[in-house]
């Protein structure tokens, strides 16, 4: 453990690259696991499917979760994370394009720790990723199993 992993759940490869770029630019060198849809995200967290056999004691210190995902949506991923003992205490930040009130309400109701709307302006986007990265990987204390 002590890798202080970031799980980035994002289906858009451009957003993946831009997020990685923003992390790198800000010297956040944590290991980043990328899940391209909700299924991959849950597989990683539970050590199933493509991540079968993974030591699930090692859980990410932060899940950066997009909402609009193929197969299993971000909201469903969040619900699963919160309902499962193994993952229920992992911090989840919703990172999305939408500012629909109902998404925010639902996200917080399901137990999201934060809700960030990805700005169009890359400098603002990079700043948001920097603050998120520093806060959740460096300052925030997570419960380790």
């Amino acid at each position, binding site marked *: 453990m002590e890798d202080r992993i970031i799980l980035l759940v994002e289906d858009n490869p451009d957003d993946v690259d831009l997020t990685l770029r923003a992390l790198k630019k800000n010297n956040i060198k944590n290991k980043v696991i990328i899940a391209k849809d909700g299924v991959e995200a849950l597989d990683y967290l539970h050590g199933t499917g493509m991540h079968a056999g993974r030591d699930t004691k090692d859980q990410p210190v932060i899940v950066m979760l997009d909402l609009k995902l193929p197969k299993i949506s971000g909201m469903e991923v969040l619900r699963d994370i919160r309902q499962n003992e193994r993952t229920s205490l992992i911090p989840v930040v919703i990172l999305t394009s939408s500012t629909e009130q109902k998404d925010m309400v639902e996200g917080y109701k399901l137990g999201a720790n934060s809700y960030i709307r990805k700005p*169009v302006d890359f*400098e603002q986007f990079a700043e948001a990723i920097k603050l998120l990265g520093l806060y959740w990987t460096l300052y925030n204390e997570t419960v380790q199993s």
Partner: protein
Amino acid sequence: MADSKTSVDEPLELAESIIHTVREPLIVLDHDLRVVSANRSFYKVFKENPEETVGQLIYNLGNQQWDIPKLRELLETILPQKTTFDGYEVEHDFADIGRRIMLLNARQIQRVWGKERVILLAIEDITEKKDHEREVVKARDAAEAANKELEAFSYSVSHDLRTPLRSIDGFSHALLEDYQDKLDDTAKSYLDRVRKATQHMGRLIDDMLKLSRVTRSEFQPESVDLSTLVREISEKLQQCNPDRMIDAIIREGVIVNGDPSLLKIAIENLLGNAWKFTSREVQSQFEFNTTVKEGKTACFIRDNGVGFDMAYVDKLFGAFQRLHTTSEFPGTGIGLATVQRIFNRHGGEVWAEAEVGKGATFYFTLPG
């Protein structure tokens, strides 16, 4: 008619006159379901005449037009068991008068008119009422469907249209950063333009969404202290623009009835404009106050900014309409369209007066 015991004992004339006084069609049948009597309203509504009605089997009226399966069920099955039945709905296509929806009240009475038993049948023509109800339901369903579609559309706009913009801006930024030694100044300035346009489009999408949200959000009016709202928004604007100084004159104690979150959006837009269009003044100022216009109290926000030519006042509140170029003053042209929708939703009004170089005044009224 409720107290049938008394009416049974009354003379025939009284019974007859009651039948003829009632405004809705009423028909009396004997135990063989032949017509004993019918009132004027029945003849009028169903276009029958007394000669061809009295003595006839009800089903045979108007060339068997009244041979209606549901009516048979009521008279032959339900009534013998229950003796009274109210609110029995029958829809039927009459050859003479077209489709009719009728609401029937039926009552069986023993020993009257010298008969063993008679059946009173009151027939209310509810065709129009029913059609109206159906129209209302249809319109409501259509409105709900349209609203759902608008919501889905807005959601898609907010999510799907912004995503590619982030890629365009992000990778333009990456080019500028990673290839700065390979790009000449022209190439760099083109990329800057790409980024500026992308960000502008991002703002357009955001403002468009705000505009649509103003229309579809719930309307919950309550007492709102506009003076406090104006002061709070003004202070926020000051914090966001620490390098600017603006004199604010705010009339205290202006309380209105309205939806607080919608009014907040309206005031934010109006004050935001006041700040924006006074940005070139040495001494910028705005005033929030009330006045009387055509006998009604109107609030107004006045600034001493660049103003505008009243010749274009009609364009002012149109979506995507601007009276200044983006390089003069930034903006998307959606703010005042949003403001107007908000006051319209309140049943109020908003209008403007201005002069080039002498500032602008935005008036608004709220009912109640």
